[in-house]
């Protein structure tokens, strides 16, 4: 009986492994969010010469747990003039796209468990990079719909700003990544990491790294590019009207996007899981690089003030896009020669 069942499922082992991996990754990403919130608050506290959360548990470690419980039990308020369906849909889109994007991010070499070769990624797509851009581009709909459905002028402004900002900076992001694609000759993220086994790409493409990182900060709506949710001028932008868990879902999306962007920078420019002589496991090397980049994100937030909106657009279209085009041109010419 049992043997029959095993025989029946034998050809579908990869489906089962895939589902398990998907669950583990999605769960880990959702679990990372409170930890990141804690890290950000602690680090911000240090940067601003204060203590940060330190009351709940040792080093304030219980703070994110109590915060999440508070958010879960808060009353959910929807104003009567809002479009109910879109109002509920918007945060779901943000979290969904953020989690799905991570599906193609590889974070280590394949390992053998019980005789099965298991790659440390959910899906090995041969257009991995394009998939990331496609799905993360869909994430902006969450913000635009939140702005549209709230029936609030500040939310609408926030939604419009986020869509304009995303469109402008996605160009730079794509062009900077394209120079790496030209170098590697593949769109697969795993190929990109294996091609960097002797030296990371940042050494030969420092300009592309800078462009990608700046555009990445703008794409994740982090300070100093957090114009869509500028507190002083737009109250809180597109999530002004949201309360409780739906409000928290926007933050979940933002933090998961931050992790994805750091992982992407690590894969494209910092050599992925290659440790370059340091005796650590590949997955530790990868996580270490991602953690460092996350700290840089937080560091930037506490260092720079928010830039003005027209400057943001000018900077994107008149500085970043021409430089990235030029960089791509030079790279392609050098590769062909």
């Amino acid at each position, binding site marked *: 009986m049992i043997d029959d069942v095993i025989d029946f499922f034998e050809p579908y082992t990869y489906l089962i492994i895939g589902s398990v991996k998907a669950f583990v990754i999605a769960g880990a990403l959702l679990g990372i969010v409170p930890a990141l919130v804690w890290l950000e608050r602690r680090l911000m506290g240090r940067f601003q010469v204060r203590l940060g959360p330190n009351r709940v548990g040792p080093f304030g470690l219980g703070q994110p747990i109590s915060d999440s419980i508070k958010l879960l039990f808060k009353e959910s308020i929807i104003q009567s003039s809002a479009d109910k369906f879109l109002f509920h849909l918007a945060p779901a889109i943000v979290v969904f796209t953020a989690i799905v994007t991570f599906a193609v991010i590889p974070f280590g070499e394949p390992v053998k468990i019980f005789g099965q070769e298991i790659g440390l990624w959910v899906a090995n797509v041969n*257009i991995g990079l*394009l998939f990331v851009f496609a799905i993360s581009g869909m994430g902006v*709909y969450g913000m635009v*719909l939140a702005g*549209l459905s709230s029936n609030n002028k500040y939310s609408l402004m926030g939604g419009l700003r986020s*869509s304009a900002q995303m469109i402008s900076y996605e160009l730079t992001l794509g062009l900077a990544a394209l120079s790496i694609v030209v170098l590697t000759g593949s769109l697969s993220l795993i190929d990109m990491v294996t091609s960097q086994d002797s030296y990371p790409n940042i050494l030969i493409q420092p300009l592309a790294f800078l462009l990608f990182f700046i555009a990445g900060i703008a794409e994740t709506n982090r300070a100093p590019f957090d114009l869509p949710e500028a507190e002083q001028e737009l109250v809180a932008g597109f999530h002004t009207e949201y309360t409780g868990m739906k409000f928290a879902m926007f933050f979940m999306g933002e933090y998961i996007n931050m992790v994805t962007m750091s992982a992407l920078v690590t894969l494209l420019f910092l050599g992925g899981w290659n440790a370059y002589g340091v005796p650590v496991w590949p997955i530790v090397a990868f996580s270490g690089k991602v953690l460092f980049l996350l700290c840089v994100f937080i560091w930037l937030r506490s260092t720079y003030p928010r830039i003005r909106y027209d400057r943001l657009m000018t900077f994107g279209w008149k500085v970043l896009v021409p430089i990235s085009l030029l960089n791509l041109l030079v790279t392609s010419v050098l590769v062909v020669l």
Partner: protein
Amino acid sequence: MFELDLFELTKATVTTLVGLTAVLASLGVILCSSPIYCALYLIGHMICLALLFLLYNAEFVAAVQIIVYAGAVMILFLFIIALLGGKKEIQEPSTERSIAIAFVATMLGELFLSATVGPTRPIEGAFDAQTVAEVGGSAKAIGLELFSRHVVAFELASVLLLVAAVGIICLSKFSYVPLRRRMK
């Protein structure tokens, strides 16, 4: 005892479901009265098309479909709707409406005719799943085809798009004086 191929069965079911959703979404685009929901149905339709491409192993076309149409074009649609304020339109019977209904009915009739006259055939071309896999992925196959045999058409199309972009800037140009100078 018939062989139950779980994979093929799942694929056929998913393809049918996605295709049905695509048709329903495109109906939603023309039948819905609120512009925001129309745009959303169109996005849904485009995502369904991308899924269909994906089901037929054309990953590159699927990704491009999502990035260009669902990502870039539709966000501009939503942008315009948000700027103009999406008001629900009140539908009233008119001559144009009856003409439109007649047109749609004709199209549906033709579709029905073409479906009954002959079974549909796949388009024959240089590439099938095997050759694409040999070249090394759909992105590479499209690149090779586009930049070798169709390079002139491709470049001409890019020039055409450039002309369109320059033209739209010329047409919509307005004399812009910065606020500070206007105040004097």
